């Protein structure tokens, strides 16, 4: 039996669709960003629904607009932002796996709530690992098929895996995606672990930071989200460049905070207030420009137990089997 098969042909690629596994780790010291899914929870569920290990390669689709032709009989699942998805014109549900056959046309429409969705396939997309990962980081020109977003006409190979059960994630277990791609949606709260130069920001700026509502600006991408709001600048001039952790909130001299995400640069010298926990950066990544953001404080102990708890909760969640 073949281990790798041609899986899909890209008929429409959408504004930015990128192959992602869980990320490229251990090479930040050489300047390589981690990459990986911005909404790790939706990515996780897409893998589980396809019976994959939870580090397999999926496609992160920004805003939708993707059309694929199936070149094999397999099983797929789409999670994340709400959008109409059809197979041969027939509407299919998100958060559920579906059989797809050779010659079928999979159409992913544009998002109505949220920005990013995850398309997983049984066995995972087959992409060569570079530095231990398939994660696409466009800025580093690494990962995916050619270090870039997917293009019309490209072929995607898949790892051959005997098709498995059709599964569904119960509504109550699905991540709540609140923000609308059109903006003006519900406010989301990001929990910040104070750290880095937090103590060097003037007291009134720190209070202002936690008491204000910020808006997502037009400058929001896989590197980071620039927010607009009151000036919370630190008055600290230049710092020596230092390692930047995931979710770090840096404040350049203009006083407008930036939440740094998976494709952030590895070192930088702007003062930072601390970092947003990863459960919450996933929610932020579903927010488009204009979304309203507030910050609250979380302690280091809470932040750490939050990761463990979220993982345990996910692992013990059983999927609903729709056929035997």
């Amino acid at each position, binding site marked *: 039996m073949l281990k790798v098969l041609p899986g899909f042909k890209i008929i429409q690629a959408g504004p930015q669709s990128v192959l992602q596994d869980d990320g490229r780790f251990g090479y930040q*010291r050489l300047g390589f960003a981690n990459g990986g899914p911005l909404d790790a929870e939706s990515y996780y569920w897409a893998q589980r629904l396809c019976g994959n290990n939870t580090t397999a390669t999926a496609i992160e689709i920004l805003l939708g607009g993707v059309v694929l032709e199936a070149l094999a009989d397999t099983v797929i699942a789409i999670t994340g932002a709400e959008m109409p998805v059809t197979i041969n014109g027939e509407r299919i549900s998100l958060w559920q796996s579906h059989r797809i056959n050779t010659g079928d046309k999979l159409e992913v429409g544009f998002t109505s709530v949220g920005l990013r969705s995850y398309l997983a396939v049984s066995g995972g997309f087959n992409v060569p690992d570079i530095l231990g990962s398939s994660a696409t980081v466009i800025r580093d020109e690494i990962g995916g098929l050619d270090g870039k977003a997917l293009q019309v006409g490209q072929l995607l190979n898949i790892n051959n895996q005997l098709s498995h059960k059709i599964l569904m994630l119960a509504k109550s277990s699905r991540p709540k995606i609140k923000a609308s791609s059109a903006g003006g949606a519900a406010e989301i709260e990001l929990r910040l672990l104070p750290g880095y130069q937090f103590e060097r920001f003037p007291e009134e700026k720190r209070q202002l930071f936690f008491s204000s509502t910020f808006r997502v600006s037009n400058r929001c991408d896989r590197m980071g989200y620039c927010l607009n709001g009151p000036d919370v600048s630190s008055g600290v001039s230049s710092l020596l460049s*230092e390692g930047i952790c995931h979710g770090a909130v840096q404040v350049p001299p203009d006083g407008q905070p930036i939440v740094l995400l998976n494709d952030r640069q590895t070192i930088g010298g702007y003062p930072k207030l601390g970092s947003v926990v990863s459960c919450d950066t996933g929610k932020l990544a579903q927010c488009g420009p204009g979304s309203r953001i507030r910050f609250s404080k979380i302690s280091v102990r809470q932040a750490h137990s939050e990761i463990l708890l979220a993982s345990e909760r996910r692992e013990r969640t059983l999927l609903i089997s729709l056929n035997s």
Partner: protein
Amino acid sequence: MRVEDTGENSVIAWFADKASVEVNESVVATCRNLEQSMGDTIIDLVPSYASLLVVFDPFKTHHAEVHEWLSAAFESINPTETITKVIELPVLYGEAYGPDIKRIADNAGITEFQVAQLHQSIEYRVYAIGFAPGFAYLGEIDLKLATPRLEIPRQNVPKGAVAIADRQTAVYPSESPGGWNLIGLCPTRLIDPTEKLPMPIAVGDWVRFIEIDEAQYLNLGGEL
């Protein structure tokens, strides 16, 4: 050394407020010791001028234990164990290859040849790697050559461009936008993610530049 939590699975150690060879040596030695003690609980280590960011696996350890490991790694530094690695990088200097060299020469009241000589006269320390994969920050250059960044960065700096900003010098490992002043071209490939060892240089190494001519540059695989 001061250690503080930075994120749900990361802590940072600061060694001083200013960078120096001694401070950076402590960063590198602590980093090396930590690799031994922490093993596979490490996700990423990011050494820089005077700090070390430790990203750990939250399912295998926690902040308090990483604080302990950091203290132990710092305290067990053996100053006689300094490992010194020097890498030589060939450079094709000149205005045709580095368009800012003339301005740097004029500002310093010296010739382009003297700029190249001064640039080669010092062994530089690799203080940090970042900005882009394989971009190494080297310091410090002779005060005569110190030049502020361009007010308007270039859209495209060529791969291999040898550059100066303030008291630092660097080689652009791949084509990218950039605001540093260009003085020449280096034919050595500085980053190759398809290799097991993707980069010949690490933080804490030393770099010496050596002038070559155009024929040597092309022979070494340089592109014009």
